[in-house]
């Protein structure tokens, strides 16, 4: 379907498709098998200006919005979710600086991020704080000109590989959620170390590690916004990034679907290509319909965010929820359409199915998304009275 | 030259529009019109069901035939590398002799570098005359001295045909000769023929990645120059008693602006990579799925005393170096036995190996085009077939 992309948006799509085709597809199976971080691909994306996509032009970026990022993430996700997760997590880590950073902080960090010289990660989740952000245990205590951070963040995408980390820590426990603050911590700061790389079901090219803070002293200027703003920073960041997860869902679903259709045209059983059988045709029709619906919703949510709307939470949650549930169904059914071949590592859909699962879990499980959507509906209904 | 539409024949069906790669044809008032984008590629000529597209050559200046007739004789440039004459020279003398006989004229060889003894050998391979220059400047290969001296000789002696090997050397410096003499050069020919009356050399070569063959003429200029693929032509008879004339040439005043500092020989541990001289080639393609697949083929190659080849797909994947590539953009080979493993058989590959004596194709897709070129076709999974073949060959060898 034609979504009336502008000339520049088409360029972004075309370029990301080219990178996916020439640089990602040839190595994706190997990256997955070896659980290898895709540095080579990140370098290509850096020199192609893709890290600067959503960063304002004054900081060396291209000044594009959520929709352009959506297009880029979707194209990459068609080829490999491990790679697109690495790229999208960089955006996730950057949003706190972009949305709430001081002029100084932006000047210091955004140009390097836009150029792809330094990768970023976002540190929110902890052992006792995932969906329940109130369980955060990491603390930051002001001592003279420095904050002293203590605690451990877990399952941090790009952990260890990134050089810039935006981290949420409690500055005043007595204030509950209003006692959290956001900080910028650079790799190499004394007292800041990493746990071992996690072994995951899917997205194995992406790196997931613990961030360990032991009396880690960061300069006072690294506080993002004000003390107590940490949860707002985190929530607004997730509002911005959530559509990107939806875009990942659309991408991986499309990638798996294309493989399944190609295979079904070639595979002959009972003297006919299996695509000739109605059972397969109906599965394909359902998959295609769901993908198109997910894409339409994700695109609409991204465009809505770019319009400057304030209440993007509900629609971005809907986009994330729907598109990632579709991704799981479509990748699973693509494996089914391909039968035994689909289950083998020789074909990419097996990996796509493993990869897709994370989309229903990270950046807020789909159960939490439903809560968020429902809460917003209740609020709206109350207001309407 | 131009292409014109016969408006009385054209039905406006648009068949020509679909084949035109330059979007140069439009239908106006029910008939086709060839516009300014036309590149004279002639793709439309054969597409027209009514034969309404015509080729008009009137605008090319006619050349007086006596000018062309003053060019006589067939020449073969015999290339040498480190003093050794390349085998393609003997093949060209074989082919050159046929052309010379058809035109009732002499066959000469040109040898720059190597020894006077090598020049005498060229006579035994069939040359009536050998223009020989032993100057040191020809020790390492440099384009300009070769181009300069050959151009001088051609201008002086006026041969009608000049052939050279389509090798790294021939394909590099012959274009300079053609540009200097403003004459036609056809690259990488796989067959040659001559019109006995006009003396026009019919030069046939693959193009479009080997998808098509084109026959090319240079009717207005002489000499007609062509580079010819090694291993395509048959060598002439070597006769020790044959006599010929060796003419010594002086390279005075010839300079090179490039300098060879070092020569590196290609070697690869274990397996010989000289594809063009191999009797047995075991080639692998995309079906091998990776570098490891080639290990299996190397084992088979060692067993059969052969060499490992590869399709472009396998080389592009980085599974094996380019020097193993067979096909349009790689080497042309004609071993006694060519075993294609997991190669689908794109035309680009077929042109490089189809003249092999016996071709065995192993592929799991029974529809793979490689089977149409094969002497023996075996449908099956490489990972089963090749190890079993290795095992059985070992057993037989052991049993002998």
């Amino acid at each position: 379907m034609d979504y009336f992309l502008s000339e520049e948006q088409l360029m972004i799509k075309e370029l990301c498709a080219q990178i996916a085709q020439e640089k990602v597809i040839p190595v994706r199976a190997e990256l997955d098998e070896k659980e290898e971080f895709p540095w080579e691909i990140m370098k290509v994306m850096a020199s192609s200006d893709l890290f600067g996509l959503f960063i304002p032009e004054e900081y060396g970026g291209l000044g594009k919005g959520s929709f352009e990022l959506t297009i880029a993430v979707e194209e990459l996700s068609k080829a490999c979710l491990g790679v697109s997760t690495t790229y999208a997590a960089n955006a996730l880590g950057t949003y706190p600086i972009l949305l709430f950073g001081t002029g100084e902080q932006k000047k210091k960090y955004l140009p390097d991020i836009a150029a792809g010289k330094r990768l970023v990660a976002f540190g929110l989740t902890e052992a006792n704080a995932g969906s329940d952000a109130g369980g955060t245990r990491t603390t930051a205590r002001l001592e003279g000109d420095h904050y002293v951070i203590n605690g451990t963040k877990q399952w941090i995408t790009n952990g260890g590989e990134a050089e810039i980390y935006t981290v949420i820590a409690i500055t005043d426990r007595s204030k509950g959620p209003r006692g959290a603050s956001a900080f910028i911590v650079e790799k190499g700061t004394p007292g800041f170390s990493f746990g071992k790389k996690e072994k995951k079901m899917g997205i194995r090219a992406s790196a997931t590690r613990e961030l360990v803070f032991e009396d880690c002293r960061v300069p006072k200027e690294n506080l993002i916004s004000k003390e107590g703003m940490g949860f707002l920073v985190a929530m607004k960041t997730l509002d911005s990034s959530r559509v990107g997860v939806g875009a990942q869902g659309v991408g991986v679903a499309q990638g798996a679907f294309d493989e399944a259709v190609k295979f079904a045209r070639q595979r002959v059983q009972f003297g006919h290509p299996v695509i000739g059988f109605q059972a397969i045709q109906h599965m394909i029709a359902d998959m295609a319909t769901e993908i198109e619906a997910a894409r339409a919703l994700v695109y609409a949510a991204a465009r809505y965010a770019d319009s400057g709307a304030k209440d993007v939470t509900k629609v971005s949650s809907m986009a994330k929820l729907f598109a990632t549930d579709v991704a799981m169904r479509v990748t699973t059914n693509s494996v089914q359409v391909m039968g035994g071949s689909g289950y083998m590592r020789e074909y990419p859909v097996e990996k796509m199915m493993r990869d897709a699962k994370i989309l229903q879990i990270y950046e807020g499980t789909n159960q939490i998304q439903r809560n968020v959507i429902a809460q917003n509906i209740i609020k709206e209904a109350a207001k309407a009275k | 030259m131009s292409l014109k539409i016969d408006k009385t024949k054209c039905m406006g069906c648009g068949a020509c529009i679909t084949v035109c790669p330059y979007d140069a044809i439009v239908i106006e008032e029910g008939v086709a019109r060839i516009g300014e984008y036309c590149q004279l590629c002639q793709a439309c000529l054969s597409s027209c069901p009514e034969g309404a597209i015509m080729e008009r050559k009137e605008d090319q200046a006619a050349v007086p035939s006596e000018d062309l007739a003053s060019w006589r004789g067939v020449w073969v440039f015999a290339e040498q590398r480190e003093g050794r004459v390349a085998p393609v020279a003997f093949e060209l003398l074989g082919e050159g002799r046929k052309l010379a006989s058809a035109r009732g004229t002499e066959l000469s060889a040109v040898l720059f570098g190597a020894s006077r003894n090598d020049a005498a050998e060229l006579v035994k391979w069939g040359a009536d005359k050998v223009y020989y220059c032993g100057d040191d400047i020809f020790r390492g290969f440099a384009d300009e001295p070769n181009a300069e001296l050959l151009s001088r000789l051609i201008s002086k002696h006026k041969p009608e045909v000049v052939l050279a090997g389509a090798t790294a050397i021939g394909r590099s410096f012959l274009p300079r000769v053609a540009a200097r003499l403003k004459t036609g050069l056809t690259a990488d020919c796989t067959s040659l023929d001559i019109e006995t009356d006009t003396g026009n050399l019919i030069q046939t070569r693959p193009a479009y990645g080997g998808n098509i063959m084109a026959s090319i003429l240079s009717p207005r200029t002489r000499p007609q120059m062509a580079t010819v693929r090694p291993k395509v032509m048959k060598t002439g008879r070597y006769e020790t008693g044959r006599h010929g004339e060796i003419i010594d040439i002086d390279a005075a005043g010839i300079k090179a602006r490039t300098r060879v500092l070092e020569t590196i020989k290609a070697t690869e541990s274990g397996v010989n990579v000289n594809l063009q001289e191999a009797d047995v080639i075991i080639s692998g393609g995309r079906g091998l799925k990776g570098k490891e697949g080639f290990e299996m083929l190397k084992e088979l190659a060692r067993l059969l005393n052969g060499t490992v080849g590869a399709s472009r797909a396998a080389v592009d994947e980085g599974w094996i170096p380019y020097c193993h590539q067979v096909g349009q953009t790689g080497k042309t080979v004609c071993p006694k036995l060519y075993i294609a493993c997991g190669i689908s058989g794109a035309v680009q590959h077929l042109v490089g190996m189809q003249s092999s004596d016996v071709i065995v194709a192993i592929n799991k897709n029974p529809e793979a085009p490689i089977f149409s070129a094969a002497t023996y076709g075996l449908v099956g999974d490489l990972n089963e077939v090749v190890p079993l073949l290795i095992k059985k060959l070992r057993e037989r060898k052991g049993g002998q």
Partner: protein
Amino acid sequence: MKIAVCIKQVPDTAEVRINRETGTLIREGVPSIINPYDTHAIEAALSIREMLGGTVCAVTMGPPQAEASLREAISLGVDEAFLVTGREFAGADTLATACALSGVIKKIGADLIICGKQAIDGDTAQVGPEVAEFLDIPHVSYVKKIIEVNAESIKVERMMDDGSDIVEAGLPALITVVRELNTPRLPSLKGKMNAKKAEIKKMGAAELGLPPEVVGFNGSPTQVKKIFTPGPRGGRKQLEGPLEEQIDALINELLEKKCL
């Protein structure tokens, strides 16, 4: 350093199919691309510019559509682009093409000229050396490695049939390059946006000072007499039965033919 890269827009031959009935190429839907060897030439030029500074210009001869390939070159980082175009250039063989390309290079001037080894449609590998001859400068073909380059000279490794040569040439010079030389970069978004707006300088024979009889069909000594498709091979034998029997049969056949 001023570097000129000669490029050609070609149909992607990997996608070309043959109509077996008519023996003609089916070019419908076949995408036009920059000749793959030329993308390595562009990459070489850009990386030399990154080292030594200077400018890179891309030159092509072709129909107006060839402009797209020049824009693609600009998206990769090429500074300037020249399109030699006009009816008078139609039907050119390698000699007439080299004549036109050298005409534009003479006009813009270049210290180093880089060409792809050959174009994948014609596969002649002749235009590069012919351009060098028209310009009266040295050339080195089949370059697989650029060892050293400075304002005065270039040192390269050239592929030969039996290995390679290390060759040095004074500048100005022309080299033709093979695929092993480098990995071509992908375009950048800013490059693509630039390419959209960039001016492509167009030149005809008159601007290049070339008389009509040396370009296009009139300046081409070679003519295509006929085009045909290579015929299929006969005498095929498909082996059948269980795998083991097939292999035994194969070995027996090969022994009979004295292939083993």
